[in-house]
């Protein structure tokens, strides 16, 4: 009996092609990763189980840092122009409209807003800035800001109103911001948080397991 002799073939595969594809994919992902713009104001937001994504466009964001200082960020550039001109005419501030448009955020009382815009971009960091005064209930400048913003959007779809607060900010600053919203009849707003999963065993977790969508 002769045994069947299977011809043995070489099992060396040339891996060059797979290596090329791997590096091509890698380069693609490296180049398409967009880094978040380094923020001038460092804020650590709290975690929440909310799963709704924060809007990336057409929003007005109020930032509250750990010392309770308040800053405003308006995403829509054309609206910023309208707001700057409105402020110039109503308060006679003499603002540079272009600098206002380019500023990533605003954080100074009305009286020093013009000089705030004159500070060069890289020096405009959160630590040395005064922020918008809100603590004094008689002089809550955020009320005026929200009024001007709301007027500039009159007739159009209202922008998403976001509040990004730091974990360590104390309640009075938060309350002052909410009061500013209430006085302008802005009753719906969203708080920016870090995502976290629903804790196991709670009602929300059970809802998630049952496949119900998280309503809000």
């Amino acid at each position: 009996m002769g045994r069947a002799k299977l011809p043995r073939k070489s099992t060396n595969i040339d891996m060059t092609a797979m290596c090329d594809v791997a590096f091509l994919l890698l380069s693609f992902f490296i180049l398409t990763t967009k880094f978040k713009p380094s923020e001038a104001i460092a804020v650590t937001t709290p975690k929440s189980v909310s799963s709704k994504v924060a809007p990336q466009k057409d929003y007005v964001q109020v930032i509250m840092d750990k010392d309770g200082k308040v800053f405003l960020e308006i995403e829509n550039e054309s609206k910023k122009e309208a707001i700057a001109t409105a402020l110039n005419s109503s308060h006679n501030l003499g603002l540079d409209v272009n600098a206002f448009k380019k500023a990533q955020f605003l954080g100074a009382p009305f009286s020093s807003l013009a000089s705030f815009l004159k500070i060069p971009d890289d020096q405009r960091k959160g630590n040395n800035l005064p922020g918008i005064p809100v603590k004094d209930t008689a002089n809550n400048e955020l009320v005026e800001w929200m009024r001007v913003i709301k007027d500039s959007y009159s007739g159009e779809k209202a922008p998403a109103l976001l509040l990004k607060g730091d974990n360590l900010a104390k309640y009075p600053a938060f309350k002052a911001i909410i009061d500013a919203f209430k006085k302008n009849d802005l009753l719906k707003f969203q708080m920016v948080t870090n995502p976290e999963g629903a804790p196991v065993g709670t009602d929300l977790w059970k809802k998630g397991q049952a496949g119900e969508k998280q309503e809000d």
Partner: protein
Amino acid sequence: MAEMDTSSGGGHKKGPGVKKGKKLSTRVDLTPMVDLGFLLITFFIFTTTMSQATAMRLFLPKDADKPEDQNKAKESGVITILLGKDNHVFYYEGTLANDGSNFKSSNFHDIRQVLIDKKARTPEKDLVVVIKPSVECTYKNVVDMLDEMAINVLKRYALVDIAESEAQLVKISDQSAPAAGQN
């Protein structure tokens, strides 16, 4: 793994007294490099989608000037949560007794069980949670408490200003209770 093929160089003869007479082959196995390449790719695939911040909605009720417009809550279904300094949490059910006998203290971890118990005992249409942050509590405390509302699926809740008497009670209790750790 990388191998060194030494068989092909056996035929050379350099001369007397030479230690290395064999020519070594330069074949390198590329498997580990491809492994690293794919590892890096998967890293970038996962990190590009994970950095979106989420948003938590909050609807504020209109400030009612007339007391009769304010929502009336049944006393048996109300639980009031007070947020104090240093992550302290206090609560009471119904209205605050004059001697403060139903004023209890808790922390962020245990309050969930308290809320679950209250939810189990109360019919859904009567259950209201009133959150009163004090002047000393932090933004994180408030957001965590609002988060507890979402976690326990409590639909009716309100964020209200603290009354003077309650603020005093919280201040005294803050000083006597030890600083609680965060959840």
